[in-house]
């Protein structure tokens, strides 16, 4: 397995077919899958998962209100610090 790069910033693209919820750098992304709640931070290992209905929280910068929204279904992938979040398909 590749060694994760913890120095590179996490980049997040969170979309539904007709909406862009967030696109840009982030510190932490929180979601829930079948295993349970989890967080993605910079340097996370490559990851592919099916999400459960619930809330997505994206913390972008310190002191700034996090971006949050509810989803019915979704797929999340993490590859080389790029998080692609596809929801409500």
């Amino acid at each position: 397995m590749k060694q994760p790069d913890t120095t590179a910033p996490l980049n997040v693209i969170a979309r539904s077919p007709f909406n862009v919820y967030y696109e840009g750098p982030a510190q932490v992304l929180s979601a829930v899958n079948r295993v349970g709640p989890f967080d993605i931070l910079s340097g996370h290992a490559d990851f592919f998962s099916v999400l459960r209905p619930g809330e997505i929280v994206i913390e972008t910068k310190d002191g700034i209100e996090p971006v949050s929204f509810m989803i019915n279904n979704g797929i999340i992938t993490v590859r080389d610090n790029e998080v692609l979040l596809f929801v409500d398909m």
Partner: protein
Amino acid sequence: MRRASAIEKETEEITTVKDLTAVFESLASTQVAKVKTKVELSKSFFELLWKRYSSIRVDPATRITNRALGDKDARQVFVVISAEAGLSGDIDQRLVGTMQKDYDPGTTDIIVLGSHGASQLSQRGISYVRFFKIPESDEYIDVTPVIEALKPYTKIVVYYEEYVSLGVQNIRSIDLISSVRDMSENADEDTMTAEDTIFEPSLDDIADEMEVTMMRLALSQTILESSLAQSASRFNAMAVAKKRANELIGDFMLEFHRAKRSESDRRLREVLISLKKKRKAAGEAQ
């Protein structure tokens, strides 16, 4: 020649038709702009998801259908995506006509989406196994019930309407499973394997979920694309109807003025004849 009052009444009716077609034309134009934005957004979403889906390299044909490939008893299905209502020109007639050329009732079932397509099929005496209403395109189209209905088939051919431009709409057909498979084979994304990626809950579960999702999205895309083509076709049909109504109004106005002139000439003639008669009677009396 018809009476001027009758022509005037008919002109008023045609003017109402012209006003209505202008309203429908304007609505169709707004709808084209609205759906076009959605098609573009949805397309970029699909491409982004596709990038990730192609990285897990799986064959959708073996997963989304319940029947084994090569089963001689397996039937194929044609999915006809039409408009929910009429007033969209001849596009649905062309769609059903194209499908009919390839249709063999012995080997093929038909699933129709949209009431207008269903009525077109009934008019031609073609039976279909399932009918689904086309949902409003303001929300993302949930095609889960349609995908469920498609599961028993090994070959799924979708007939839909393609938007090329405001003036041009084509009829297209795609083999849904093959096109999803071809896209996967042509992908240039690096493969994600269990050796270098964490799959939760498992690669198999994710592959199952992704394949159905991709099929769902591919079908939703074609419905959205059809909706765009139908709106454009409706716009064209209304523009033609408005032009025709304008021509008719012009013709009627000409006829109206001729009738008016003819009526006033006739009245004048009657007055002159009557004057002539009176003069003649007065002359005889003297």
